[in-house]
Every structure is written in C-alpha cells, then in structure tokens.
C-alpha cells in the first residue's frame, strides 16, 4: 500500500483508508455538514438578537418592533430546532450505518479467511476488531465531522462579526485564542498517555479479580489471602495515583478554558466598556462572542486528538480487511464453480470420495519444521483411515489438509483423481461431514442445528439421523421436541447431548467424506458407546477419517497412521503395527492397562451396590 509507511503506521491518521467508506455516505455527510453549518450560523445570530433587544428596546425605550422581534426570534428557534433535529438524526443514523457496513464487510471477509489466521489470532482479538474498532471509526466520522464543521464555522463567524463591529476590540479578544490553542495542544499528549495508562492498569485489576476468583482454592489452601490482598491493593493504589494525575490534568484543562473565557470578558469590559454608554447591545454581544469562543477552541483540539487516537482503530480494522486468505480459489475456479457466497452448483461434478496424497510436503505457516515430507497415501472411496497419537501430537493435520483448511506446501492432494485446487473449496466442503472433539452448536432450535449442513432435510431424514445416534431421548426430554431452543452455543444441552446432535448433524449432511476429530473424547461413557455404535454404521459406504483417542475403537480401520510430535511415525493395520513393537505398541499397552484398571473399578462398584 502506498499510504503505508515503513513502520506500518498510517498517514494522516489513516483517514485516506476510510475514504471509500465515507464516500458511500456522501449525501449524509453533506447533510450533516450543512446542518452543522446552519447550526453554527444560528448560534452566531443568537447574540445579535440580544444586541438588538438591548440597543433598540432597552436603550431607546420603545417597544414598536416587539411583535416582529418575537416572530423572528421564534422563527429562529424553530430553525435551530429543525437543523438540530436533522443534524442529530442523520448523524446518529450515519454513524450506526457506517458501523453496520463495516461489520457486515468484516463478517463477510472473516467467512473467507483461512485457518492460519484463526490459529494466529484469538477469538477475542478478532471479535474486538469486528465490534469495537468499527464502532469507534463510525463515531469518528459522523460525530466529529459535525462538531468540526459547526465549531470551525462558529469561530470564523464570530470573528468576522466582531471585526465588522469593532476591529480593535476584536484584536484584544483574539490574542487569547492562539495562546489557549497552543496550551491545549501541548497538554493533550500528556492527557492521552495518562488515559492509556489508566486503562492498562484497569485491565490489570480486572485480571487480578479473575485470578483471585479462579485461584480461590489454591489461595485458601496456601493461606495467602492477605498477601494476594496486599498485592491487589498495591495495584489499586497505583490506579488511584494515575487516575488522580489524570484528573488533575483534566481539571486544569477545564479551568484554563474557564479562565480564558473570563479574561476575554475582562478585556471586553476594559477596552470596550465605553461602548455600553451608546450601545449596551453591542457591548453585550461582544461579551457573548468573547466568552463563546473558548469552548469551541477546546473542542477542536479534542476532536483533533480523537482523530489521532482513532488511528489505532483504523489501523487494526484495515489490517483485518487487507488480510488475504492463504487458501483461496483461483479466478478460473471461481469462474466455473462460483465463489463461497454465489456457488454455481450446476457446474459442480459429483464428488465420489477418492483421496490421494501425492508427494505432499507440509509445514504450518510460520513454522520451521516440516510436518509431512514427501508423503504418499491413497485413500480410495470407502476407506476408513484412523489417526492415533498422544494429546497435542498433531493428529488434526491430516484432517486439516483433507478438508483443505490448509493446502500442501508442496505436492498435491487429489480428490477423485484431480488436484483439489482445481475445484472450489465449497465444492469439497459441501461433501464433508465433520464432528469435532468439543461439539459446537449454534443458537437456535435443535432442528436448525440438525439441518445446518443440509437445510432441505425432511422430517423423516431427521428422525432417521436421530435414531442412528440414539438421540431420541434428548428430543423427548423437551416439550417442544425438535423446536427446543438450545441457547447460546447450545449451552442448554449437556456436552454429551451436544455431541450426539452434532453427530446427527454430520450424518444428515450426507457426506461422501466423514471426518471425526476425537468425537468421543469429551463425553461420558454412555454417550461414547452410543456414538461408537453409530460410527460403525455410518462409516460404511463413505470415505472416513477418524482421529481417535481410544485405540480400541479403531482396531478395524483400513489404515492407521500413528502420529508423534507432529509427524507420522508408523502406518499400517492394527496387527501389523502391534507386531512392529514400536510406538503404537506402547500406546496400545498403556491404554489397555488403563482400561483394565477402569474395569476393576467398575467391577468393584457393581459388587458394592449388590
């Protein structure tokens, strides 16, 4: 990007980056500026009315034009109200609509970003980009534009009117303005640093609360409540001091504004008091303008500072929007198969389910070490591949590659005999069924969740899928059956129930390729048995990849890949692997032992109950 400097920060507070967005709101920005302009104008006229009242009615002692005065005044008030109404309404509406557009774009973009982005950035971080940065930017462009226009105009207008009445007196008042502006600019930097520091300490305090609560058991057993308390108090004292420092600066700011306004007033009285003899109104008008100037000057400095501050938000947001998905379809592929949001399903070939790894090298983006090197593997349609290894050994890599969540660094993965990059991602994904270790449901009803992968599933198909995973019990439990709301993230269901639903969801999608990523690792024994029984049925007639934590469940797999520290160390059928007496053999022995111990306890318990 041309506007990006070496250090990656943006020029002109990043405002150029936002021009395309603001351009879309040309009309609104125009209305806001115009109404702000009129508001400023009307603000200026107010004191003129007072001047007239004083000069004409009070000094000359006549009420001849009073009716006109009242009518004009009320008309002016009406105009003020009207422009203010338009200004406020359009301004807020523009702000929220800018937010909406930015969020919509961010969300859409996020649907296409690749998994290397998601593994490099936490959900909280991405969420903040889409929610808070956008709202700050929106505020900057609608709110601040209006204020800037209004105040700039007021300042210029007030100076012009004062000049037209009395040049010398105006000069006296104006000396103060640059001094005060300079003062504000000098102090603002400090104010911002302090503001940032207090926010940082504040989040530390929240962190301390979190630690004090989640670590309660440890704190109690170590009897260090008082120590933790003391440390906490040190942090709040730190906060106290910083906040007070900040307040002193802020107060100084406000007091100086006040003081400057009064100095201007004193100037007017001193140099212009004599005016009052002839024209009390003119004198009083000067008073109004002189006093009224300081507030807008302060506002302008603050607005400028807000733009300086807003740079960070713009930076973060544009960085998100400029991140290019590392896995994407070529223009030719999109031409033929359509993109994610507008697929051309009519051009899609039917997916059979043959997968082949051909000389595949793979390393994760940013990593040094290759996870796969010159890897070959044929998975003909209907094959059941199992991947085993310890927790955190990197078992998901194969699934990531098959799903094209990541692409090979070198070599090819063929689906139905052709490199899968020759077809669209959506084409492949539409033929997948995926069950994760920690089930993820979306808020909505059970039915909506079940039909997530295939929205046109019939009631019979749904019932069939439920029967297959023995989840009838869950549905019957609720009065509303399938139309029961599952809550945010499915939280109204237990983990086991969620997993059964997510498994049924995968079955309903009628996948050609089924990926089970430790589907039974986080569920209770009963659910595990149900799912296991279903798996045995479901993998027939499909290509399936089962990442397993229980070795006993994959003994019959066609190919077992054994993973250690990210690499595939052994491959073969169960018996072959055992005969090798290598890593798989050790895993198997240990797990067998654990199972046997568990069996002893189960035995004991049942005896105990009898």
């Amino acid at each position, binding site marked *: 990007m041309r506007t990006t400097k070496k250090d990656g920060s943006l020029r002109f507070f990043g405002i150029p980056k936002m021009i395309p967005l603001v351009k879309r709101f040309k009309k609104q920005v125009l209305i806001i500026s115009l109404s702000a302009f009129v508001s400023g104008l009307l603000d200026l006229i107010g004191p003129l009315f007072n001047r007239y009242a004083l000069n004409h009615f009070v000094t000359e002692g006549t*009420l001849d034009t009073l009716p006109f005065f009242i009518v004009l005044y009320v008309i002016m*008030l009406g105009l003020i109200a009207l422009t203010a109404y338009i200004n406020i*309404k359009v301004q807020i509406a523009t702000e929220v609509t800018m937010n909406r557009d930015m969020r919509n774009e961010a969300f859409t973009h996020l649907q296409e970003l690749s998994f290397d982005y998601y593994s490099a950035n936490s959900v909280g971080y991405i969420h903040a980009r889409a929610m808070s940065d956008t709202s700050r930017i929106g505020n900057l462009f609608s709110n601040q534009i209006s204020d800037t226009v209004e105040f700039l105009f007021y300042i210029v207008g007030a100076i012009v009117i004062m000049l037209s009445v009395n040049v010398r007196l105006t000069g006296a008042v104006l000396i103060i303005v640059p001094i005060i502006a300079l003062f504000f600019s000098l102090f603002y930097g400090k104010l911002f640093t302090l503001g940032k520091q207090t926010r940082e300490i504040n989040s530390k305090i929240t962190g301390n609360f979190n630690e004090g609560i989640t670590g*309660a058991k440890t704190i109690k057993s170590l009897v260090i409540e008082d120590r933790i*308390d003391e440390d906490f108090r040190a942090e709040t004292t730190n906060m106290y001091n910083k906040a007070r420092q900040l307040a002193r600066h802020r107060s100084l700011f*406000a007091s100086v504004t006040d003081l400057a306004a009064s100095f201007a007033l004193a100037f007017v*009285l001193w140099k212009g008091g004599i005016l009052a003899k002839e024209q009390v109104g003119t004198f009083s008008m000067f008073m109004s303008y002189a006093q009224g100037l300081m507030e807008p000057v302060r506002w302008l400095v603050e607005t400028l500072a807000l733009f300086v501050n807003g740079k960070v938000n713009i930076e973060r947001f544009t960085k998100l929007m400029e991140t290019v998905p590392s896995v994407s379809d070529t223009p030719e592929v999109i031409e033929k198969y359509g993109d994610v949001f507008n697929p051309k399903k009519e051009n899609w070939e039917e997916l059979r389910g043959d997968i082949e790894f051909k000389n595949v090298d793979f390393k994760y983006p940013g990593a040094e070490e290759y996870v796969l090197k010159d890897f070959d593997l044929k998975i003909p349609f209907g094959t059941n591949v199992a991947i085993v290894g310890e927790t955190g050994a990197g078992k998901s890599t194969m699934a990531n590659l098959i799903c094209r969540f990541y692409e090979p660094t070198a070599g090819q993965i063929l689906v139905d005999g052709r490199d899968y990059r020759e077809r669209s991602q959506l084409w492949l994904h539409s033929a*997948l069924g995926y069950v994760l270790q920690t089930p993820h449901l979306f808020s909505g009803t059970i039915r909506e969740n079940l039909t997530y992968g295939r929205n046109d599933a019939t009631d019979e198909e749904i019932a069939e899928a439920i029967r297959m995973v023995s989840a009838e019990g869950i549905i019957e439990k609720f009065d509303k059956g399938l139309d029961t709301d599952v809550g945010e993230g499915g939280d109204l269901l237990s983990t086991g129930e969620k997993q059964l639903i997510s498994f049924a969801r995968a079955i309903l999608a009628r996948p050609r390729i089924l990926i089970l990523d430790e589907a039974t690792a986080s569920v209770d024994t009963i659910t595990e048995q149900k799912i296991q029984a279903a798996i045995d049925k479901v993998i027939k007639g499909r290509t399936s990849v089962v990442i397993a934590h229980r070795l006993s469940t994959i003994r019959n797999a066609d190919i077992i890949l054994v993973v250690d520290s990210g690499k595939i160390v052994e491959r073969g059928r169960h018996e072959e692997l055992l005969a090798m007496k290598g890593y798989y053999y050790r895993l198997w022995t240990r797990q067998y032992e654990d199972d046997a*111990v568990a069996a002893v306890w189960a035995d004991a318990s049942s005896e105990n109950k009898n």
Partner: protein
Amino acid sequence: MPEKAVSKQDKKTARRLHTQLLLKFLKGSKRLFACSIISSLIYALCDMVDPQIFRAAIDNAIGGKEPTFPRYVLDFVDRLGGFSYLGQHLWIMALAVVVVAVIRGISGYLQRVMNNKGAETLVRRMRDTMFSHIEHLPYEWHMKNHTGDIIQRCTSDVEMVRMFVAEQLVSVVRISIMIILSLFFMFSMNVGLTFIAIIPIPFILTYVLIFRKEMEKGFRECDEMEGKVSARIQENLTGMRVVRAFAQEAKEKEKFLEQNNHYNSLWVRLAAIMARFFTTQHFLSMLQILIVIVAGCVFCVNGKLTPGEYVAFVSYNSMLSFPIRRLGRMISEMSKAGVCLDRIGHIMNEPVEQDAPGSVEAPMDGDIEFSHVSFSYEGSSEVLHDVSFKIPAGSTLGILGGTGSGKSTLMLLLDKMYSLPEGSGTISIGGVDIRVIKTRHLRKNISMVLQEPFLFSRTIHENISISSRTLTMEDVEEAAKAACLDEAVEGFSKGYETFVGERGVTLSGGQKQRAAIARALIAKAPIMVLDDSLSAVDTETDAKVRRALEERFGSATIILISHRITTLSKADKVIVLDNGRIAEEGTPDELRTAGGIYNRIYDIQSGLGDAYAKDGKEAGHEND
C-alpha cells in the same frame, strides 16, 4: 423482574441496605466530597458575581445611573473612588472580573480535583473491600458462583456506583445551590420578572421526565440487540470449523446481515427519538429565554428595570436552564445505581469464613483421625459414607480410588474447604476436632498440592515463594530441586524470573504440577497432601520426587492420593476408597496378597505388557 414483585416494605429495607453499604464504602471519601461541594459553592458564587459587575459597569460606572446596591457594596465602591471614577478607569472593573475569574478558576480546579480524589478513594475502597471479602468468602461460595458474573459485579457495577456518587450525587447538591442562588439574585432584582421566568419551568421538567423514559427504553433495546450481534459474531468465530466444513458461509452471512440490519434499524429509530427529545428540550428552554427577554424589555421600557439589571437578569436566567436539563438524567442514573448496589450487596452480605468461638491453634504434628465421616455436597447424594481411618504422626498414607470415589472430598474436608456438619462424624488432629482449630492455622500447617495446579501470572520464583515474603532464592532453588523442576527452569532463558501465564511461557502439565509441588514443599509444613499431583509426570520423575520428599520430610505426615500403584507402594498404609466407602485397608504388602482391588490393579500395572498386547491382538482377530 424481581423489582416488581417486592413489596413496599422490602423496598424500604433494600434502600436502607443500599444506604448502609454506600456509607460503608464512602468512609474516607465523604470529607472529600464535602470539600468538593464547598468549592463548587464558591464557584457558583463567583458565577453569580460576574453579572453584578457588568450590571454595575453598564448602569452606574458607564451609564451614570443612581446605584441601587446594598450599603456595603456602595461603601466598597466609594473607597475605590466612586462609580464615576471607575467609569473612567474601566481596567479596575476588568481587574475585578479577572480576580473573580481566578478565584473561580481555582475553586473550579479544586472542586474537580477533590471530587475526583473522592471518587478514586471510593473506587479503591470498594475494590479493595470487595476483593478482600471475596478472598475470605468460603470455598463453597466460590464453587456456587460464576467467575464472569462476580467479575462483572466487581468492575462495571462498581463503575456505575462511582459515576453515580461522583457525578450525580455531587451535582445534585451543586445544581441545587446554583438554582437557589440564581433565583435569589433574580428575586432581589425584580420579583415580577422572576415569576415570569419560573412559570415555564415545570412544563419543561415534565416534558424531560416523561420523554426521557421513551428514549431509555430505546437504549435498552439497542443494548440488548448489540449483545445479540456480538454473540452472533462470537459464535461464528468459535464455530468457524463447523461453518467451513459444512459449507455454510453464505447462510451465516445472511443470518448475520439480517441481525445486524435489524440492530441498525433499531438505532436509526432511536436516532429519531433522540433527535426529537433533545431538540424539543432545547427549543423549550430557548422559548423560556425568549419569554424572559421580551418581558425584560417590557419591564425596561416601563422603567421597572435598568439595562444593567436586564443584562444581569438574562445571565442568571441562563444559569437556571442548564441544571433543569440535567435533572432527567440524574433521576434515571439513580435507579441504575440502586440496581448495581444491590448486585454488589449480594457479594458483600455473604458471611466470610469464620472460626468457631473458642478456636485454638492446636499442635499439628499429632495423629490425624477420620472418624465416621459422612458427607454430601449441597443438593446431591452422599459422596462419603461413614469413613474412618487413622494416620499416625509422621507416617505416609496412600489412598487409591477411582473417579468419583470421594478421595478429593476427604482432603477438602481435612483442609476445611468444606465444613463437616455436626453429627456427620469428626476429623481430628492430635485429638483435637478440626472444627475448633483455627482455619488459617490449620491450612498453614497442611501443604496441599491440588490435582489441577493453579499458578499465578507471576514469575516462577514468585510462584514458588508465594506463601511467604521472607523466603530466599536458596529456598526457592532447593524446593525446585526437590520437585525436579530445576532442570526445566534452567532451560528457560530467564530462569526463575520467567513469567508464567498469558504474557509468558506456557508450562507443560507436568511442569505445572512440579511447580505446585515446589510451592508446597517450601512451606515445610508438618502435614503434606499430594492429591494426584504427579499424574502428568513420568514414572521416573514421580519416583525422584517421592524420594526427595522422604529425605526432606521424614517427620511429616504425608497423604498420597494416586491411581498409580508404584506411587503408593512405599506408603506405610494404603486405603482403597470405592464409591465413598473404604473397601480395603492395610500395608501395601498386605493388600498385595489380599486379592482385592489393590491387588488386581497392581497386577495390571506391573504386569507384562506382552500379555495384554497378545490379548489385544487376539481380540483384533476375533473381530475380523
């Protein structure tokens, strides 16, 4: 919704409780707020003086009219040389304006600074008392409440109360002062005109109060919807794998757009309401000003008001309209602060852990005895049934148990994390019932290493030495060595100063466990409990740690909970806990030959792997 259900009496009690709580928090900051109010009084007075100076300048010094000021003012002016002298030397009057401005500037500064000091003192006090209170609440309470909820009460609710006290409560006083003073000066100049100025105010107030509600409803709707939009993004991001694998990007987009657009339309509607509210409010107060101007002119023309008085009167009148606009906001903030205080009260009114009267600091190096202990967690079935056993001082007890057998509960009871109800048996140390042993004393003398170790986001050094500030680096290194953590720590570039947690390195499960053991070892307590705390380390390290334990803690009473037989084989006595009951009890050797659970697990764990592998192989063939 609970607010509607409560009766008037309850409301009264609630209000009293709120006030009590608030007063408790306000200790130490009340004086500051009082100072802030006094400063704002001076500030307001200065505000009132300005129009009088200008009135005098316009009417008397420049206009040459007969002054109508009180006696003392006239005396003061005479001493300065009289009004006509001042008229020729206007700089004196300008100076007066500057002097007033400086006084006002200083008092304004003081007012803001004092107010902030008061507010920060309040916040600090609230946070400190709440934190300390939470730390001292029983463990049971912690188990019952959600972390997120408690944190919200400690952060955003505290902030709301601060805003209320610092901004609303003080400004109520300040605004009242301003209104009273303005009215006083207005009345003193012209009673008739003042009445004319006052008449429109009730109407404006009524408008503000009524329509503010509508706007607030809109705000609430928007807030709720924003929460939904936010949750939708969250859900989409956490479920990204599912979205992609099921090829549902388009549908997700469609759903999000629908929700986001709805949120937007709510705001656009609210924008219109807000615009109408603020504009009308502004229009009404401007109209009131017009009425005063017109009436003032009429009064002037009729000779009932001088030009200077007119200018002063208009100034005072403008000081009236600002406070009135604030009033609506204040009332709504007040009810919000009440809700927040209520939520804070839910924490502060919980009783903290307390020792029974007459509790003692009994010697802790005696025998530990569990006698007929039964226990159930609130609302669930019994987890321990009539458990009795004795651990002679200085001996090692091993406990073997399956998941849910109640072994961890035993230790939580021993450490008084949960209190054993009367009549459910007794736990005693050296013959003293732990119910009458001071909790802090008890816990200090029991070093407990928990199943899932919790490390603080501090350095490794600080984590190990957290139990006392007097521990030296040597102590830390020694403990780390005994826990077999030294080698791992030396591998880190910053050694013991390596930061643990989010901002630092992530320790492996085994390293965390060993750090927790080192932290427990350093205390050199007479009783040591290791609750499955070596599960994530390999057998060799396990053995090494246990050897170090024996060497250093020959005299300590040790309780080892494990499901690894090798860990338990050196214990003096082992009990096998099954479903809350003691199934077997004896020395490891006795249990080995008893043919029970212990024996069977021993056989499995020490048995030859070959046998099982063969077994597995056969099983595999069977299925083929």
